[in-house]
């Protein structure tokens, strides 16, 4: 993970992008983020895996990450080096998985203002998305307190490790 506060290119996708589109089934034989990343959006947008650069962002419309529960979907995005996903809304399991993996996911009602190729960055503390290409800033929804605690604990794995060791 780079620094999401640094501007990167937005790759914009539409509504109802399901996890089969993010990582097609035939590539799920691997659990390696880098290998999965080589096939992210393989069929939907074949230029994505070779064109995406470290520090870029994925921007979705409504219901991003719907369908299959495959954690390989957010993991493939981690593997591409993107610094976060901004969408108007997320499907439930994708959202959980991304939080658990430490991939920043922001629910941003104005994500539709972002055009493909715009330079954007995230201010995770303020909960905003900054569009440098047109000098705009959009508010994102803040995480519920419980989820913020989980993120602050370093994600579900470290939270669970502390639970097992009796620290929590």
């Amino acid at each position, binding site marked *: 993970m780079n620094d999401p506060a640094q501007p990167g290119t937005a790759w914009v996708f539409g509504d*109802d992008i*399901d996890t*089969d*589109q993010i990582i*097609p*089934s*035939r590539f*799920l*034989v*691997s*659990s390696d983020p880098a290998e999965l990343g080589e096939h992210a959006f393989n*069929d*939907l947008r074949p230029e994505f895996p070779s064109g995406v650069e470290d520090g870029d962002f994925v921007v979705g419309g*409504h*219901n991003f990450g*719907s*369908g*299959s*529960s*495959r*954690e*390989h979907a957010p*993991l493939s995005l981690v593997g591409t080096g993107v610094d976060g996903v901004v969408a108007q*809304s997320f*499907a*439930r*399991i994708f959202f*959980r*998985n991304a939080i*658990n*993996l430490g991939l920043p996911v922001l629910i941003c009602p104005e994500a539709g203002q972002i055009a493909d190729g715009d330079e954007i960055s995230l201010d995770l503390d303020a909960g905003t998305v900054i569009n440098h290409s047109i000098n705009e800033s959009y508010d994102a929804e803040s995480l*519920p307190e*419980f*989820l913020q605690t*989980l993120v602050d604990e370093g*994600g*579900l*794995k470290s*939270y*669970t*490790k502390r*639970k*097992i060791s009796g620290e929590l």
Partner: protein
Amino acid sequence: MTGKTLSEKFLSEKSGTDAQAGEYVEAEVDTMLTHDVTGPLTFDVFEDVTAGDGPLAKPDRTVITIDHHAPADGVKAANNHNHVREFADEYGAVQYEVGDGICHQVLLEDGFAAPGDLVIGADSHSTTFGGVGAFGTGVGSTDLGTAFATSELWFRVPETLRFEVHGELPDGVYSKDLILKFIGDVGFDGCTYMTAEYGGSAIESMPVHERVVLSNMAIEMGGKAGLVEPDERVLEFLEAQTGKAYTIPDWLEADDDAEYADVHTYRAEELEPQVSKPSNPENAVPVSEVVGTDIDQLFVGTCTNGRYEDIRIVADIIEGEELAPGVRMVVVPASRTVYKQMLETGIMDTFVDAGAIVQSAGCGPCFGTHQGVLGDGDVSLATANRNFPGREGSMDSSVYLSSPATVGASALYGEITDPRTVELERYGDAVVEGVSS
């Protein structure tokens, strides 16, 4: 204070709190499920959080199946299968082999989901278990791998969207048609973060194998769970299946004054067979709107409609007939038990004689990697649950979703056909009615 929904009752009971919709709780999980695709990632998480020492919190309720790439369709898939076997052996998990069947079906057959259970699966169709009165929900591999170690997981207590169908379903209209209609009405994300709860006289009178179809596809409107309040019929089903006695816990009942996000009410007599057009389950239309659409491949199977009763409906329609010229049919039973029932009742012959292909139990082409994937321009009519672009193969293929009856009728003509034009049966639960398992 208002009363509680079924979901609020479940998560109150399992977390030991007074859980209200919108709150976050940590709850005790009863059954945990993964398979050959989501398993390896789950095992990595479990071994990370336990530093490779284990143990599984509930080994006899930790179930791992080999169903998605089964039989193995490549070396990497075969290696993943071996990984499943090694993990189950090392930590003492319950493991099913290639050909045993789809995770959701074998869990139902072997009593791993019963009224009052909280079941999580690293597979989105884990909502299936709501049909037997269990709160089943899909999670990711990090969720599941940590729960393997603690048998606990966090949940947002969901609001509930209720669907009621009153009256008697007309001929040719099955639970699959109902769920396609519901998804069409509320949309692909219409139930996101919520539980779908199904009730009314038409649903109360449904056999269990039809109820689980409603629960299974709750995820296709974004649902976290799909619940039908369990009754005596569920207990009979589980007892016939497992030989063991089950009860419904006292707390498992929605309060009369429970609050719902919305209630959608239907008259059964007014409903028609539905077909979801490519490329989203929400594109549901009455079959009459797509009658005559040419079909290349028919697919009977999946965790939605691969049960004996589903396959039997198709067999009844095509018995003594041959598939229409130019059409191929792929049949994939949901489990080895279903496969045996097909052999014992003779319907295996019906399919082979008609020119269909019957494959070993598993997910089949619904997973899009093997056993009948679609090529460019191919059009499929499937009893499956998803028709996203490329779901069953080429991005340039098209998948229509329907009930088994619509698939059966369409097999005779090679085009989408209204099932009400052929003679149809409606079956109770085969296992309750004496078909051996």
